[in-house]
């Protein structure tokens, strides 16, 4: 019994240390965002200061440059999932239900897209968007994001559709319902949770992407993720403002992950591990 208690205390201590190491930096950035600017220069670094919302005011109200970037992030991420969902749902359904030749190859190709270095796609798209007059638009980023969101959503959605028993659809088929009717009135509603989960994860994927806006956006379409770069000035770094931007950019995926807690493992492994 005694040995057991020691072991338990050991595990708790280890996990407390783990939490300090992995959540500490996040707390530190939250603290930065409400630090008075002069406190960021105080040595040794301290957590004792008079909190202020000045940095958030600067970022979102006056002059509020990042407010537009926040909107851009929302427009681009929403746009990406809106285009993504119908295309990937149909593909996932077909891959789950129909006897398609070389199914493994197609799934492997989708996965390959997720694992390819994005820079490889970006150079040609940067030139193409210039040539067809889409450069600097939200749409250009939304379109290229499909390279990530579609493969991801197909994988995750397929895992959800695979879970729906075939018998329900077969029964409807015997009753004379056609493929589209079954899809619309049976599979789609049954997939509700899967679709919501997939869409939310795809939203996070798009939201957290920085390399596409770095290359494809201009000042008026820049997203919040890359907004902090303009505060590394030659005359000094405005750390509190950078902290406020970082906090604004990270709360959105944090909340989505907390909401999706039960599906986090599944989402992060593209549906291949059901947590």
């Amino acid at each position, binding site marked *: 019994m005694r040995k057991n208690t020691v072991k338990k205390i050991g595990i708790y201590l280890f996990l407390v240390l783990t939490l300090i190491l992995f959540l500490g930096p*996040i707390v530190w*950035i939250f603290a930065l965002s409400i630090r008075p600017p002069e406190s960021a220069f105080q040595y040794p670094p301290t957590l004792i200061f008079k909190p202020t919302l000045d940095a958030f005011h600067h970022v979102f109200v006056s002059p509020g440059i990042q407010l537009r970037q926040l909107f851009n992030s929302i427009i681009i991420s929403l746009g990406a999932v809106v285009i993504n969902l119908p295309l990937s749902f149909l593909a996932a359904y077909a891959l789950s239900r129909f006897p398609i030749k070389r199914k493994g190859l197609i799934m492997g190709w989708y996965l390959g897209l997720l694992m390819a270095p994005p*820079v490889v796609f970006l*150079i040609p798209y940067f030139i193409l968007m210039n040539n067809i007059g889409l450069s600097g638009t939200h749409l250009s980023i939304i379109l290229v994001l499909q390279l990530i969101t*579609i493969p991801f959503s197909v994988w995750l959605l397929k895992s959800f559709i695979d879970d729906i028993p075939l018998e329900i659809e077969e029964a409807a088929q015997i009753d004379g319902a056609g493929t589209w009717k079954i899809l619309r009135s049976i599979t789609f509603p049954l997939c509700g949770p899967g679709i919501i989960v997939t869409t939310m994860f795809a939203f996070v994927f798009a939201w957290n992407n920085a390399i596409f806006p770095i290359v494809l956006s201009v000042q008026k379409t820049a997203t919040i993720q890359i907004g902090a770069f303009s505060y590394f000035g030659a005359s000094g770094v405005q750390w509190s403002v950078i902290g406020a931007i970082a906090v604004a950019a990270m709360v959105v995926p*944090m909340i*989505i992950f907390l909401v999706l*807690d039960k599906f*986090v493992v599944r989402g992060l492994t593209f549906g291949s591990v059901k947590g």
Partner: protein
Amino acid sequence: MLAPSFILLFALTLYPLIFAVRNAFFYWNLQTSPTPQMFVGLDNFKNAFTFTPFMASLRNTLLISFIGIIIEITIGLFIALALSAKMPYLTFVRALLIMPTTIAPIIVGFMFRYMYWDVTGLIPWLAKTLNIPEPGAGYLGSTATALPAILLADIWQWTPFFAIVLYAAIVSVDSEMIEAARVDGAGGIRVVWSIILPTIKPVVVVIVLLQFMKLFNLFDLVYVLTRGGPGDSTMTLSYSLFQQGLVNFNIGVAAAMTIMIVAILNLLVFIYTKFVMKGSKLS
């Protein structure tokens, strides 16, 4: 039904492919011309080795990928095992632990740039408190520490990912099997080695591949923290490709590098699927 998504993706991927294959054989600087300028045969491939830090980038990329994977999965496994002890509050710990993984890598870059800051950064201060000598040009500015410093940020972000996925896999291991082994006198290490690890192997094989690719493509952290410097010490393949194609606008050389990077990637994935993933879910 497959067609719409298939065609869109096919078009989206075919274009860069044709682009790379064609332009790899042309001299083309986008600053001086909107179209390819001159057929140069294999010169771009040669130039990729002589005028760009391709070998240094390859070395750094492989170092980051292999060392990163080993550290992340080892620490992740320990955390997962601790989480799987049947004790109160652990689900709460698990839910909080995923937070670093949810943050955009670029934002993680900003966070660590602040924490490495040589004036009042948390990490230099901690190191000084522990009497660890600080490199002269700061952690991000010194050749010896810049690459490990970037790796540390990645480890911080992705170790929780391993912890949580491995935890999910460990929980699904048949507890009767573990009980039976314990009754037969197997100790903790023996149970982990002979029962838990073999059972979770299929999951490990999948997440190692996914994470290896993320590390191999590392870009955001390099972009925020070091831009490949000092010297070539933190150049990764993704970053030096970005630099050739989108900073120097040497499209021809970048196209040649693209072909080589994709070939290396395919070779690594081929070896992995051939020898490690046999019969697993993703193959």
